[in-house]
């Protein structure tokens, strides 16, 4: 593998959906990636900064190959990122990941369930590794 083409950091943008438990879970997953699983390889940005921020913020998905993590099929993170920044490398949705893991959604919008957050974060970490292998 050519190291020059291996992106050091992969962007992961959570929808953070305030209304639903899955939104709170997306937020926990990104923090677990950043703090525990892939601290040197993950970058993130607050999704609403694409509107509140400036041009620098809107180059995020151009600067980093980006995975979006949405809590529901409205796909706010994916659509917002693609509208204001760049096409995403992967668009993941929490119910799909949970279904693939044969798990049930747990937690509330106030409190995420740590084991579930960890299991989902490990799945996203695999996608990060896959993107790195592909060179972004």
């Amino acid at each position, binding site marked *: 593998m050519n190291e020059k083409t291996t992106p050091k950091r992969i962007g992961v943008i959570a929808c953070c959906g305030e209304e639903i438990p899955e939104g709170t879970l997306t937020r926990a997953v990104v*923090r677990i990636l950043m703090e525990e699983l892939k601290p040197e390889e993950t970058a993130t940005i607050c*999704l609403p900064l694409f*509107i509140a921020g400036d041009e620098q913020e809107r180059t995020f998905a151009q600067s980093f190959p980006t995975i979006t993590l949405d809590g529901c099929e409205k796909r706010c993170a994916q659509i917002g990122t693609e509208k204001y920044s760049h096409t995403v490398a992967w668009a993941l949705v929490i119910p799909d990941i949970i279904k693939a893991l044969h798990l049930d959604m747990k937690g509330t919008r106030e409190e995420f369930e740590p084991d579930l957050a960890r299991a989902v974060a490990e799945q996203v970490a695999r996608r990060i590794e896959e993107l790195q292998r592909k060179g972004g």
Partner: protein
Amino acid sequence: MKKPVVIIPCSGIGKAYGTICREAVYEVVERRRPDKARTLCLGLLTKGDEEAIDLLKESPCISVDGCAKKCSYKNIERMAEKTSIPFTIMDLFRKHRDLNPNDLDLGTVLHLGEGGKYLVHLLADEICHVMDRMGDKDE
């Protein structure tokens, strides 16, 4: 029946202040004023969801922001063309001069410390106070 106040916290994911805003909003909409307030996903505005924008256009709005970027306030302003009643963590510290963020155990984005939880309650107090004044004006 009057429309519930829509209270939207920022989606701040980099610092504990984002979590403080988020939890303060849940404190208000879940426990303190559940019949008078609701929240809405801020991402829906960034996406440009028409249903969310229509809801904001016809409801009183409060934004709660954890940093100077004011994502909640600006998304409401730009997408719904509406001025929300703004709350920020910075204003909370300006109002409560006895509080020094460096002396508080804010905790992390995922797990607030005692100081962070204290700010959640203080911020919820402030939001409820303003909501009650809004109600008085309407009566």
